């Protein structure tokens, strides 16, 4: 059966991503700035203690969302998890929750496109491959903005975000929703991602024809011993490696 659709993960797959080393130095002040506060607990506390608290609270939300397939509204993520110890008025958090999520996604994490991304997207477009993005993200806007900034947004027919669905990969609903929006068939589709736990397992459970893994800095953070039994159909090291794989599938 001919493969005519490729869905991509965003962070770690289309982009190289890294946690910044010096977040402790700027994050409390930056969050305060976003919230329009001055002299709040965020900056009154010792900077090390404040950052440790933020990290601890974020880890707690991360544990919840990694164990479930639920993406909570950013207003609740920040009120009920990350800033829960900081006595900040609910309305203030709610009014700025998207900005907070955006800061986390773009300033605590640095992003740049992987090498060869436009060449690869051009090559797939020339082959009439339909393309989409599925991303687990706490922000409603960051993925759209990043794709636009990279100049590649027009390649993708759909951009599916966990923040908009309330559900995260690896739940098959996310993959089915993307394919349904594109009116494409899972049995003619491939998924490219950097993790076994979310990308490979999710795409396979959703019935996609092929799964491809490209290693990133987040692969080790996300995958543990429990994912050991799963293997992607292909492992690649460069996005351009996808092109001959798709050609080979479609030739056979």
């Amino acid at each position, binding site marked *: 059966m001919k493969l005519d659709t490729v869905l991509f993960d965003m962070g770690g797959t289309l982009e190289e991503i890294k946690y910044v080393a010096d977040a402790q130095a700027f994050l409390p002040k930056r969050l305060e700035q976003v919230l329009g506060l001055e002299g709040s607990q965020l900056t009154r506390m010792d900077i090390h203690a404040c950052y440790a608290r933020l990290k601890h609270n974020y880890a*707690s939300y991360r*544990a*919840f969302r990694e*164990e*479930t*397939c*639920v*993406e*909570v*509204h950013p*207003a*609740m993520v920040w*009120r*009920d998890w990350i800033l*829960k110890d900081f006595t900040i008025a*609910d309305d203030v958090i*709610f009014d700025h*929750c998207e900005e907070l999520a955006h800061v986390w996604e773009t300033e605590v994490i640095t992003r740049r496109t992987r090498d060869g991304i436009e060449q690869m997207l051009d090559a797939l477009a020339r082959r009439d491959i339909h393309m989409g993005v599925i991303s687990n993200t706490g922000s409603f806007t960051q993925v759209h903005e990043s794709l636009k900034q990279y100049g590649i947004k027009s390649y993708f027919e759909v951009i599916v975000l966990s*923040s*908009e*669905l*309330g*559900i995260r990969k*690896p*739940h098959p*609903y996310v993959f089915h*929703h993307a394919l349904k929006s594109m009116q494409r068939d899972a049995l003619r589709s491939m998924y490219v991602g950097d993790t076994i736990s979310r990308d490979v397992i999710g795409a396979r459970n959703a019935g996609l024809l092929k799964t491809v893994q490209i290693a990133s800095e987040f692969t080790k953070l996300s995958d543990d011993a429990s994912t050991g039994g799963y293997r992607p159909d292909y492992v690649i090291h460069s996005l351009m490696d996808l092109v001959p794989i798709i050609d080979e599938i479609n030739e056979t």
Partner: protein
Amino acid sequence: MYRYETHAHTKESSLCGHIAASEGLRLYRDAGYQGVVFTDHFNQENLDAYGRISWEKKIDRYLAGYRNAAAAAENLGMDVLWGIELRLSENDNDYLVYGLTEAFLKAHAEMLSWSIPDFMHAIACLRDVLVYQAHPYRQGCHPLLPVVVHGFEIYNGNPRHDSHNDRAERVANEQHLLILSGSDFHRHEDLATGGVVFSKRVKSISEFVCAARTLQSTSLIRKGSL
């Protein structure tokens, strides 16, 4: 400390409810509770029983129990809130949903035909909505795995069912889920068998959701006592 019932039905709005809302509220006041979240059954069978009326009127009919309780609340000094015990047509699972609005229910006449991921998708843009699977290990229910709701009702106090609460609690702990306890109040014998304890009063469903999010096991009422 303030006790709240999280899972209660009324005679006015649930086919299986035996006690009128205002009477239920009085019973809870006498049992030492500060408030009740009424969660009448929101499923096809229950809504069909309201007769051949428009969807909008069905929602009004559905909220009748809550409204009667709300009218009685001031005299009793109680807090009255509402949620729904949702059952979608895909199976017999029940979900306790807190934070929906009357407008949301009225706008989605098709919602019972959704899957639970469809439902979670529909509420993703709403803040302050929490969804728990009610008594996930009771016979006839299928615990969601992977979990796409925020939590499990890990203690259901209804004496006429074995809800296998221990299993629900174990899985909720393993998966870092939010937790809840409720009496599943329909009759006198169910009164105050479950519920939660908050450190401050919750007067709106938004405050309830905020407080429920941080509940620990030690704040759950089980068989009437902590």
